[in-house]
């Protein structure tokens, strides 16, 4: 075998391995969601349901207000995507193209927030929200996600790759900054912008600690924290098969979204200079 194909073989092996590691929990979720309650408790666990119980999905929808959770999540996700994309685009444009006093320092400060663990911010954010009397409100769920340092960084890198000359040419032609951003920068950075939007959605979908903290009412829960406690039976035991069925249901839209926009996400990551 030639060394070239040897190293390819190795590469595929590594890729398969990491894909497997990522896919196993998914598989287990779907596997569990189709089992009967009795089969779940069996030891050793079965790798494949002995009979499919699709009823679990129906039970999940009936037993917990999944649709409310989903709707809440969609509302929060859309708001966050809308606001944080606008904020990120404008901030990134300023950092990439404009000259103003303190630009470098401000940018470093924003990057610095990426280094601080989210868990640390949660406490101070919580105190702020509580002081504002925002418990159990939409703004409490939305506000902390509106400024996203990573998205600003990713967009700035993409904007910087648009040649200076395009900007100078439009300046000579009397095109305003805002118009240049809209007509030239945004279309040229489409894939990164889609990536940034998707990342925001995923972030909201997965976020757990913050919504649990600022919502106490069931009607304000998101899928992530809503599903956690929804499926305990009378004896106080968690009904995993139904919880997993519910999880499968809420993850589906995300998987669908990802598959639809895969092309953009990958080229967006590559364009931003962050290769996997």
């Amino acid at each position, binding site marked *: 075998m030639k060394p070239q194909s040897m190293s390819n073989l190795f590469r595929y092996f590594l890729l398969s391995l990491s894909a497997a590691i990522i896919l196993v929990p998914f598989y287990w979720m779907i596997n569990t969601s189709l089992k009967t309650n009795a089969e779940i408790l069996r030891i050793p666990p079965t790798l494949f349901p002995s009979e499919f119980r699709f009823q679990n999905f129906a039970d999940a929808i009936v037993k917990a207000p999944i649709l409310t959770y989903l709707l809440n999540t969609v509302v929060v996700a859309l708001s966050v995507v809308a606001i944080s994309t606008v904020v990120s685009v404008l901030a990134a444009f300023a950092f990439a193209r404009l000259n103003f006093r303190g630009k470098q320092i401000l940018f470093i400060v924003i990057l610095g927030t990426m280094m601080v663990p989210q868990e640390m911010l949660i406490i101070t954010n919580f105190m702020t929200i509580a002081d504002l009397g925002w418990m159990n409100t939409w703004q409490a769920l939305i506000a902390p996600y509106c400024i996203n340092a990573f998205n600003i960084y990713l967009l700035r890198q993409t904007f910087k790759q648009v040649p200076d000359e395009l900007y*100078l040419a439009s*300046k*000579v*032609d009397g095109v*305003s900054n805002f118009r240049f951003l809209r007509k*030239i920068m945004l279309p*040229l950075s489409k894939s990164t912008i889609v990536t940034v939007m998707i990342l925001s959605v995923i972030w909201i979908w997965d976020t757990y600690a913050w919504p649990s903290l600022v919502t106490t009412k069931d009607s304000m829960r998101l899928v992530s924290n809503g599903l956690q406690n929804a499926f305990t039976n009378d004896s106080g035991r968690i009904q995993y098969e139904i919880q997993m069925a519910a999880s499968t249901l809420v993850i589906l839209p995300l998987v669908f979204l990802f598959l639809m926009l895969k092309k953009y996400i990958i080229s967006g990551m590559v364009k931003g200079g962050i290769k996997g």
Partner: protein
Amino acid sequence: MQVRLEQLTKAFESRKKDSVIAVNKLDLTIESGKLIGLLGPSGCGKSTTLFMVAGIHDVTDGKIYFDDRDVTELSADKRGIGLVFQNYALYPHLSVWDNIAFPLLNSKDMKKRLKKQFAEQHSNSPNYKAYINKLVEDAAKLVEITAYLDRKPGELSGGQQQRVAIARAIVKSPSILLMDEPLSNLDARLRIQTRDEIKRIQQQTGITTIMVTHDQEEALAISDEVIVLKDGLLQQQGAPQDVYDNPANQFVAEFISRSQINMVHGKIATNKLYLGQEEWFPLPAPLMDQEVTIGLRYENIKHAMENIERSFTASVTAKARIGGISTVQVRLADGQQITLLNDHDESLRESERLNLVVKPQSILVFNQKGEKILQC
């Protein structure tokens, strides 16, 4: 429109203390309607000068006048210039039509101007949209790209892209057209073709044009006037043939001859010029004794049949032929090599002794500072 630079200076602040002086007290006047070649080696400040005229770079010191109007502090979009970049700077996601129309549709001032023009002219166009379309098509026609209006820039060749860039610059009928190395990304054949196109477009429109280039052949071929810069300093300005025949100094002589010039070491002693160590001829006018460099262009050195006035002898060391051009290398008594054209492709033998003369008025004598002290 006439362009006048007065003591124009640009210093770039660098991290370290000393700033780079990219353009140094430039004084020059460019007459209206002329095509000017701004010429010089890499890093001499050509682009910087152009971008100051365009209003993209701030001026460190000095003034820029368009006719009698001081535009030094005016922003780029208010100067009424068209700018063509070295890398074309076309918008890749827009069609050729959209690229050319972009300056017309995306500037408030331009829209106001066009609306007014449209209202005043009662032009043949039935409505404003058709009027814009006509402007775009006229520009496209001028640069001969009407067949590609629907394509994206990525689907065009380099030469075609360059034409689109020129069309975009002239569609708003600027009073001055500025081009930064418009040909440097093209291959040799296309370069000659496109440079002639530029000449034609400039003549048809009559727009005062400044074209930056580091290729003297390009500048000499199409410019009405060339301006030679070195290290941000003006070296010479004049008609191409004049600059070629009468270079102001050693730098210009070497730069403009594209290394087709011999720089021979010599000296002046008791009012006689020495080529190497050999006495050559008496000076027409007295000069101080000094070491000199004598510039002799390949094409100006001729074969003499016999030992006539101002001739010198040298022996053949090598012959070369590149394409249609034959050259001969000869050696002076002190070992210095001189190259000359072998016009008639004569069959010369190695170490054959030749009598050589130099065309009158083409012996260029420079002092140690590179200043020209004599041309005869």
